[in-house]
């Protein structure tokens, strides 16, 4: 069983949802990112999503855009991100890590080599924002050969007919973009989730994570009442900018407690 599948299986037994916090690699420097990864794992993160900085993150709002540019300024490269993962893995072999980013740096690295190196470094899954199923054949075989989960975004605009196509070749979990919009802006309501999540459940057995606009422990709790995981990104980056990495870890703890406060039916 993959690390990601293992975590979700364990949580089903425990009867609770997962918290997936986000770290933009090298924002504002490598040491902070490493400390955040380690600190998040120690403060209740079940899986961690790592942003791979890109100059032109088309689906991201101002917060993640700025974080990516700070990361690039601090010298982030794809190779550097994998190095960060490798160092984290040296002391943590159980927390799944998912890389999120855009296609061009991966193309530039070379898709087959990237999949080999990412798997060796200890990456568990990939979210490539600008790679819809129509173009995904360029990475599916290499990802599979290296046991990397390909995690797909599903949007409110994704029709039932299309849902099937998007889920084919998806593994690990599905990432439900709860709003039509960019990251860090609006928040989906409980009513939205109550309407949308059952539609996904009917189409897949994969765990469902919800992101885009989840900011507070209360919102994270609302999310896991309907779905299997809450992804929190922009809110944590805002905290890092305005306060400190200690404050981020404090928030992660609170988010993790929020998620743990919702009991689900144990499997």
């Amino acid at each position, binding site marked *: 069983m993959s690390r990601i599948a293992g975590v979700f299986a364990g949580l089903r037994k425990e009867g609770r949802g997962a918290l997936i916090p986000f770290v933009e690699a090298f924002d504002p420097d490598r040491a902070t990112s490493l400390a955040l990864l380690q600190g998040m794992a120690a403060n209740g993160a079940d899986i961690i999503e790592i942003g791979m900085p*890109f*100059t*032109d*993150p*088309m*689906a*991201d*709002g*101002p917060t993640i*855009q700025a974080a990516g540019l700070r990361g*690039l300024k601090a010298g982030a*490269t*794809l*190779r550097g991100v994998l190095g960060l993962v490798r160092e984290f893995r040296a002391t943590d072999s159980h927390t799944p890590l998912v890389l999120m980013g*855009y*296609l*061009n*740096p*991966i*193309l*530039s*690295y070379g898709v087959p080599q990237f999949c080999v190196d990412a798997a060796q470094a200890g990456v568990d899954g990939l979210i490539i*924002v*600008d*790679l*819809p199923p*129509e*173009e995904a054949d360029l990475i599916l075989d290499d990802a599979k050969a290296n046991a990397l989960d390909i995690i*797909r*975004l*599903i*949007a*409110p*605009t*994704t*029709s039932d007919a*299309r849902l099937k196509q*998007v889920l084919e070749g998806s593994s690990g979990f599905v990432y439900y*973009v709860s709003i*039509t*919009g*960019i990251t860090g*802006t609006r928040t989906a309501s409980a009513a939205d989730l109550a309407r949308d999540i059952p539609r996904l459940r009917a189409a897949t057995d994969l765990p469902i994570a919800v992101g885009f606009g989840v900011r507070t422990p209360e919102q994270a709790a609302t999310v896991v009442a309907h779905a299997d995981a809450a992804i929190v990104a922009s809110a944590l980056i805002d905290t890092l900018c305005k306060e400190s990495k200690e404050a981020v870890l404090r928030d992660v703890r609170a988010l993790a407690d929020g998620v743990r406060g919702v009991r689900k039916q144990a499997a």
Partner: protein
Amino acid sequence: MNDHTPNSLRAWPDARGRFGEFGGRYVAETLMPLILELESAYRASKSDPEFQKELDYYLTHYVGRPSPLWHAQRLSAHLGGAKIYFKREELNHTGAHKINNCVGQILLARRMGKTRIIAETGAGQHGVATATVCALFGLPCTVYMGATDVERQQPNVFRMKLLGAEVVPVKSGAGTLKDAMNDALRDWVANVHDTFYIIGTAAGPHPYPELVRDFQTIIGTEAREQLMQAEGRLPDIAIASVGGGSNAIGLFHTFLDEPNVRLIGVEAAGKGMHSHEHAASLNMGRPGVLHGNRTYLLQDDDGQIQEAHSISAGLDYPGIGPEHSWLHDIKRVEYVGITDSEALEAFQLCARTEGIIPALECAHALAHISKIAPEMGKEQIILLNLSGRGDKDIFTVAKHLGTSL
């Protein structure tokens, strides 16, 4: 382009929206359903005589087509070689070729029931053309424009506002066309239900490169006919400047299957090809994925997109339409570079010899003509797409010539 033979260079893109390995649809899932909807709406319109009739009506009576073909006799004599013809797209309503595409796309938007229009703009020509058609059809219009471009293209910013558009200055990145396109895409992702994105160049996710090209091929189709009437033959060379590449593909497409017509695209070499301050994606870049399509891009070793530079805001883009990438790879079109200072020279030469102030974009193609025309015979013909007028550029040019206005 189903009416062409299978071996035709005019038969692309394929069903996946690819020109060879270029093009495609690299967008976030939120946009994918809309891209597919747009494609099917476009297919339906393309084969609908009513749509073509409506388009023709606006092109004739509103845009002022056909645009004239002008034999630039004084410039030809000055350079002392080939006969030079200008396809005068700068005489279109709003002063550039951009309006051809905007009329086509807004008619499509109306068919799709979209009630709000967004666009990106570099030099402001596409923004002005979009604001114009939005005013014509009474649709609200938001134009994203890099903050740097807002600064250097004030007249066009004012024009757009006069036409009732909202102009949003984009401060991310270097504040140029690339950044404007990022923010337009972000707006679109957030407003998919009612918004139509009028992309200004033959780039972006499929079907845009095909759709924009189709709306611009009228340039080459008309010029070809006009030249047959004037000279009884095809040109030896057809030439155009390339930024995103819509004016160039508009001119070239009709000639792709004519092996005796040499096609030349002129990229902005900025301060020099090896200066790192240029916009020559084909000559100096390598293939990658940006803004929804695979194409040649200016990028560093890590695949991060680099800033382009050109004196001409309309050429200041680190990518290029995918069809050009393919035409470059199969060597059907030659792509050359012209520097800022060469373009400035040609800008002035055209103004003095022909009484036409060309856009700085076209001045790049004119500069290359200055290099090749003298070496050609007097019976040979060069056809240039004079895609825009230069009124918008007089402030930039004055500054470079040391005059303050």
